[in-house]
């Protein structure tokens, strides 16, 4: 009776146990534990940034039951990702999945270790799409939303596909009320940056801006309805040195049109640091090109 259901249930439970070999507990805040994913056998653990409330006395609970000390290597609040290094070796690194194969409706499991014991919830992929910018200005390579329930301590845990491979890091810190995961591709990039620099490098202009509707004649000429009006320019900043001023309306950065702050942020990647970047603005209704050399955000 119910042979297929039994087989499915057994496979799910086995999947949790296997994936759980690469899921650890990360204790870096009072009261609540959180989870982490083993990135390398020598102790690199990736977790959610928002669960790290204290950087001293970070502890990692391993799948074999041992608790070891750990130190914070680097944090990237923009993608809610952090890397800690546990004083351990011989760990089981998570096996990454290929996201190209992922489709809406696929079964996924959230595997977490809020305390000593492994926990899991089941769901499906609700949405999978192109790049997505987080509220904090971080870039996720793939928008990955699921309906897995996130219980306390599930943040930092693994989002696991039906083949047991890890497709992302679960966190409740990226969106309110829905489960948005940091995709494994983004994790790779962020972890590499955090291990190398302790942070994710970002280019910096030194302005504050907000979207503004362009006047009709200008709209027709540039083929866009919105731009970004500069509200303030930090003294001595790259923008200030290049001559950008309050009231300039940015319509393009490099060859990319921008009309929202997140579109501007998306252009300020690490490779822009120290390299001349043409910025197209409207000044007194006329398009002007100003070359800025972005600095590095500290």
């Amino acid at each position: 009776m119910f042979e297929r259901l039994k087989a499915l249930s057994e496979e799910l439970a086995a999947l949790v146990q296997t994936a759980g070999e690469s899921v650890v507990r990360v204790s870096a805040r009072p009261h609540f534990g959180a989870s982490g994913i083993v990135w390398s056998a020598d102790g690199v653990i990736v977790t959610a940034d928002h669960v790290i409330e204290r950087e001293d006395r970070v502890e990692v609970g391993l799948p074999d039951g041992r608790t070891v000390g750990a130190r914070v290597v680097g944090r990237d609040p923009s993608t809610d990702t952090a890397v800690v290094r546990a004083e351990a070796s011989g760990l089981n690194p998570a096996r990454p999945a290929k996201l190209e194969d992922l489709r809406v409706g696929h079964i996924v499991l959230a595997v977490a270790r809020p305390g000593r014991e492994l926990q899991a919830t089941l769901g499906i992929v609700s949405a999978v799409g192109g790049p997505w910018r987080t509220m904090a200005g971080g870039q996720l390579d793939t928008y990955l939303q699921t309906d897995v329930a996130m219980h306390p301590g599930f943040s930092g845990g693994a989002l696991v596909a039906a083949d047991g491979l890890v497709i992302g890091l679960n966190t409740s810190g990226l969106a309110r009320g829905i489960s948005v995961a940091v995709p494994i591709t983004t994790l790779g990039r962020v972890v590499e940056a955090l291990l190398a620099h302790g942070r994710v490098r970002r280019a910096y202009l030194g302005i504050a801006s907000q979207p503004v509707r362009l006047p009709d004649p200008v709209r027709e000429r540039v083929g866009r309805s919105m731009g970004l009006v500069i509200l303030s320019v930090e003294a001595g900043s790259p923008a200030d040195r290049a001559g950008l001023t309050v009231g300039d309306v940015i319509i393009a950065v490099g060859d990319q049109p921008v009309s929202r702050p997140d579109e501007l942020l998306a252009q300020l990647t690490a490779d822009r640091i120290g390299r001349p970047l043409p910025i197209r603005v409207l000044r007194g209704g006329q398009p002007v090109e100003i070359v800025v050399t972005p600095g590095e955000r500290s």
Partner: protein
Amino acid sequence: MAELLRQLNTDLAALAETARAGLVRVGVWGMLGVGSGIIVHPAGLVLTNAHVVRAEILRVRLADGREFRARVLGRDSTADLAVLLIDATDLPALELAPAEPTPGSLVMALGHPWGVEAAASFGVVTGTSTDEAGREWVLVNLRLRPGNSGGPLVDAAGRVVGINTIMTGPETGAAVSVRSARAFLRRVLAEHLRPAAAAS
């Protein structure tokens, strides 16, 4: 592809049907109760939550509609378990699972949420935990509502892995673990069998 889903649906419906046969409704005599219970022995043993049992004489309604007066055989408020006896035989008892379920296992909860007759909710075992009082819980990701209390949480093989007891959130709940239930049943039955053995 859709074939497998159809087959799983067939299995789910069959699982619900099996579990429903062992599900009873528990209430105080003379009142329509909304508590649930589980037939754990063909000779009339019904397992439920202690908090569902609010009188010494209760009314139990079987899935086939028959109603019986039930006597409280044993009750443990700390464990939140009670076992009732009804005067019936050849009942469709549900089997108790030999061990606690592992995280990720599929489970179905049967009961009478808000009085809705024999409703099923399907989900997954999140984990197991032991609280300060030493009670063992099976944590589940499915919907439990008032009226689910005392009903069976069954695994994919139709075996009881827990007694649905509390909702802990909109989509989460906790069931008294089958291990606690088995220990409780053993204790109660030992008490009742001892005098009989002495008399023989």
